[in-house]
């Protein structure tokens, strides 16, 4: 039988109960959230379960919500079942003071560099990652640039006048 958002939701709630929540379907894609500690268990379940088989990690990124204390950084996984052609989105939220998330590298090798990029931009510490260091920015950078509190432009440049550039 074909895999619908309803069946996925039922199987997830059946297995994890209260630990998965916030089921939504923006623009047709099922999107849910789970507790930070069980992100690997959820992904493993989605990978192994015969009815689900989400074996392709499309994307891994993070979003910073400075307003929600205790849940500032969301790590968003996009998974894809290539056989049934179903995509889902799965989020875990973590605190900005101690942003620890278990790494998905054993399950999906694609997560290796995607997690490094997320660490580089947001400072999310992926526990168990084989090589967690900066990938896109210069190694000496000491802050995490994509967080909302940091500006886009480099502050030491002298040739571009903010007033004239409309900032």
């Amino acid at each position, binding site marked *: 039988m074909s895999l619908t958002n309803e069946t996925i939701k039922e199987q997830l709630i059946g297995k994890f109960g209260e630990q998965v929540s916030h089921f939504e379907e923006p623009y047709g894609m099922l999107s849910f959230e789970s507790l930070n500690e069980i992100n690997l268990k959820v992904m493993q379940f989605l990978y192994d379960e015969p009815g689900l088989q989400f074996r392709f990690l*499309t*994307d891994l990124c993070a*979003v910073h919500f400075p307003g929600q204390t205790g849940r500032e950084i969301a790590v968003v996984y*996009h998974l894809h079942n290539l056989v049934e052609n179903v995509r889902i989105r799965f989020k875990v939220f973590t605190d900005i003071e101690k942003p620890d998330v278990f790494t998905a590298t054993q399950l*999906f*090798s694609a997560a290796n560099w995607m997690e490094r990029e997320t660490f580089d931009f947001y400072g999310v510490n992926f526990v168990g990652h084989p090589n967690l260091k900066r990938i896109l920015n*210069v190694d000496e950078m000491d802050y995490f640039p994509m967080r909302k509190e940091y500006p*886009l432009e480099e502050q030491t440049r002298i040739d571009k006048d903010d007033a004239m550039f409309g900032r």
Partner: protein
Amino acid sequence: MSEQHIKLPEGSIEKNSTTLNLGPTHPATHGVFQNILELDGERIVSAEQTVGYIHRAFEKIAERRPLYQITPLTDRLNYCSSPINNTGWHLTCEKLLGVKIPKRVDYLRIIIMELARISDHLICNSVVGVDSGAYTGFLYVMQYRELIYEIYEEICGSRLTTNMGRIGGFERNFTNLAFEKLEKFLAEYPEVLREFENLFTRNRIFMERTIGAGPISGERALNYGFTGPNLRAAGVDYDVRVHTPYSSYEDFDFEIPVGTTGDCYDRFLVRNQEMWQSINLIKQAYRKVQEFKGAEAEVYHADAPAYYLPEKKDVYTKMEALIWHFKIIMGETDIPPGEVYLSVEGANGELGFYLISDGGRAPYRLHFRRPCFIYYQAYSELTKGSMLSDAVIVMSSLNLIAGEMDG
């Protein structure tokens, strides 16, 4: 060079393997990324990649720009095939805003996207030739890339970084001259592609260089997140145009070429065959566009005045059009909050756009799922145990575009 410039790492004199630095400036016009290879004689023991030499912070810039100002940023992702990136971004915006696109616009978009795909595969395949020493094929096909550039110029005014189209369609109807050039392309290019194939496909030297270089199995490729021609060369027929059709691809009839071993030769052949399929698609789309008659033949954009920039001649003469133009460009129109993920089949694979909007003028978060970044991770596995010259061939056959990789 004095000792200050050279700092030898720990144990580098005692170890048996040679460390070779390949990049970031290396004599093949691919882009800037660095591979540090450990060689045992001529065999590669391991490879470590460093990227980020052209990190331009697209995602951070996009958090400050209204939707139309992000289109030039998307151009510069995979700059060999900018119209695909532009169309992907416009499709994402249209999904978020709920704009419905007329069929003629879809078919015109398909023509442009397939031309861009041909343009990118031409660069990749001819550069694989250049890297294995065969410069001639490159010069033959660059001539026809110039014709593709002229077609882009007729449609949007610029050659390479096209900034093509609007949310809802195109900025102007395709002129007769654009269609004339397209017909010339369709008439002359297949012959050139055949000539290019004759140079490479059954060429003994090329085959010896590329067969067996950098193979990967289908399961490993899927685990690494490969998409696009690299995945199809490994045997998995996943193509976003077929799985999640966008822009009316479901109305068309085309095949997905699939390889077996995933080595460089298979990738070359898959890209080659995809070019034939693209020519097929352009012919079908062109025929369908010509079937529109009368008023329908003048449709080149959706009816969405809140998001589609008004035409230039109206902007210069009528007040309302000027006001709408200003409001839309400056981001003063209302964007609904929402979260959308859309992917298109870029020339390298699944190019995804993850857009979170909170109702403001600029996206709250825009993330590009860049295929090059994801499959370059596998380079160390692809080259383990192969010879040094294979390292170069594998790198160029993966079609690594630095702009997309670092973003």
